């Protein structure tokens, strides 16, 4: 789009910071750097403690890995400094700490698995931590790419329908592929090509989210104005229910054809909440809950895997040797952790759980760092979500508002579903803990999500008032248009 490129250049050439109108905001990049260094130090301390406890000595490894990790995030910081000067200073450090803690825990679980294999005389399993570090690098590259390529988040609104269609294709792809290429542990949510397996649903989530924001900004007046009042609730007209029904059916489709409870819940939840934010009407929440209940009931009646999940949730100890094994071990792990945990490297999360690195990493945190540590990690997520909503409040354009709120809410909902599932608050669904769990797709996709948040927060806090607005007509230069 040449017009956009031009506009972008005009924007950057406007360097006068004393532009009268906006809120004058410092860039806060140095705060970000200090917090990033703090985060890296915490991660290095964690690794040193694990080494000291598990291996009995702290080697130079800590320094090497620490330096590598710090280098990765320094690159991210420099890119933000260059391309998103006014971005929120806390998003990056919070993500860095979560990601670092995840890496330390995965390396620690790798080592425990090695010990297990040694004692039972089996072949040593390959570690997952180096792979996760490689994925972190890929994620950071995507982060940089998004920040460099998307200079103005509003460009995304133009590609709303394209991204929406792409998201649906990504979401549906594993269901259409033969099971040999897409099924792992009963869930058809993978694409396995040449030794790599990726979960397209993670990327689909973001694409669909952008589409929701673009669509709702365009249609929100229709959705919020035309209504009838029934029983004190402003109900929308029947035909305006169309999009909700489509998303509802799509998320049910994910559940039916891919057996993926988590993604299904995530997509429907995000849509309902974005609809609510766009229209400010409580009735959408009521309709959403109603549809959710109906869908949940039907799914419970029709599908055995949903039924099993619910039964395990109600009484996991009745199934402690088969389906309920993971959740029972998770509860034992959390119980062992208690208030202050066993200390890093002192727990036995490895022998408890097959999925200790992925779905159940929250249990590992709870066991080794206790309730205090787990709450601290949840606070980091809270921080990230809060910064997202704050960005949403500050940014001036409706699309940015809706997108930032949607991104923030998607993180919140995902964390709720994971932690709720692991602690037996709600039935267990297979979702990853953002930034912490082992898993390339989730990590890389979430880096893209954070890049979008950083981009919007930069626009929100930039002191120039109407970002990228053309000059008033009276002051514009006369142009001769060649034909």
């Amino acid at each position, binding site marked *: 789009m040449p017009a956009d490129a031009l506009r972008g250049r005009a924007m950057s050439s406007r360097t006068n910071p004393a532009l*009268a*109108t906006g809120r004058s905001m410092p860039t806060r990049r140095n705060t970000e750097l200090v917090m990033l260094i703090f985060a890296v130090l915490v991660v290095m301390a964690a690794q040193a403690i694990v080494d000291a406890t598990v291996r009995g000595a702290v080697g130079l490894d800590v320094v090497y890995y620490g330096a590598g990790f710090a280098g990765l995030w320094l690159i991210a910081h420099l890119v933000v400094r260059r391309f998103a000067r006014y971005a929120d200073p806390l998003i990056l*450090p919070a993500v860095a700490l979560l990601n670092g803690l995840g890496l330390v825990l995965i390396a620690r679980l790798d080592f425990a698995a090695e010990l297990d294999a040694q004692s039972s005389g089996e072949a040593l399993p390959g570690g997952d931590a180096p792979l996760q570090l490689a994925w972190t690098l890929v994620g950071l590259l995507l982060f940089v790419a998004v920040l460099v390529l998307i200079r103005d988040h509003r460009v995304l609104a133009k590609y709303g329908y394209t991204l929406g269609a792409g998201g649906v294709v990504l979401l549906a792809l594993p269901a259409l592929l033969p099971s040999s290429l897409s099924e792992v542990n009963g869930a058809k949510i993978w694409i396995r090509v040449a030794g790599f397996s990726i979960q397209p649903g993670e990327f689909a989530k973001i694409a669909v989210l952008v589409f929701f924001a673009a669509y709702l900004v365009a249609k929100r007046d229709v959705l919020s104005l035309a209504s009838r009042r029934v029983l004190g609730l402003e109900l929308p007209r029947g035909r305006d229910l169309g999009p909700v029904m489509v998303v509802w059916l799509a998320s049910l489709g994910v559940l039916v054809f891919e057996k993926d409870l988590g993604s299904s819940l995530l997509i429907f939840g995000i849509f309902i909440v974005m609809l609510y934010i766009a229209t400010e009407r409580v009735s959408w929440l009521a309709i959403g809950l109603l549809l959710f209940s109906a869908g949940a009931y039907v799914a419970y009646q029709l599908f055995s895997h949903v039924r099993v999940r619910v039964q395990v949730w109600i009484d996991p100890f009745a199934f402690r040797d088969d389906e309920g094994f993971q959740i029972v071990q998770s509860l034992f792990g959390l119980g062992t952790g208690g208030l202050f945990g066993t200390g*890093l490297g002192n727990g036995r999360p490895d022998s408890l759980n097959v999925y200790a690195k992925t779905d159940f990493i929250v249990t590992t945190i709870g066991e080794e760092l206790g309730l205090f540590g787990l709450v601290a990690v949840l606070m*980091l997520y809270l*921080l990230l979500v809060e910064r997202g909503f704050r960005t949403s409040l500050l940014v001036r354009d409706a699309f940015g508002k809706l997108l930032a709120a949607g991104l923030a809410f998607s993180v919140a909902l995902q964390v709720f579903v994971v932690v709720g599932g692991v602690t037996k608050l709600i039935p267990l669904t297979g979702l990853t803990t953002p930034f912490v769990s082992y898993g390339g797709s989730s990590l890389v996709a979430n880096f893209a999500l954070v890049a979008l948040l950083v981009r919007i927060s930069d626009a929100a806090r930039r002191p120039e*008032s*109407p970002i990228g607005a053309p000059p008033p007509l009276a002051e514009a230069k006369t142009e001769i248009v060649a034909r």
Partner: protein
Amino acid sequence: MTAAIVVQTFRFGFLILLWLFIFAAFRVVKADLFGAGPARVSPVPRRGAPAAKQAKRKGPKGPRQLVVTGGSLTGTRITLGTQPILVGRADDSTVVLTDDFASSRHARLTNRDGDWYVEDLGSTNGTYLDRARVAGPTLIPSGAPIRIGKTVLELRS
């Protein structure tokens, strides 16, 4: 295996470190929230407030902020510089109103030697300065409410 005392130190030391990070992060949040200027704006515009009395309290530099005290944008504040401020429903206005009674280019606030003037840009429903309809550029006394549709703006020092 490491000595028990060391393990315990690690155990609690790390938790303290983790919470120190959270504490530091929330300090940043706090600085972000309360760093800029005094806090709240009273949402109720003082009707017919004695403008002269307020004008006396005006500092030598004149007003520094434009505050929205009524309508859907209540609470919004904009730091004043020397550039004019456009008010209206158009996207490129400085204050973008979502007010059905406002025109797309409704009014302009201009600075002349530290004094602010309000000027109606041919709006449909008019701009009112403290009850009186604005015809030409009019000096805004500090604290006098400017009414545009349902929105009320005020200059504050």
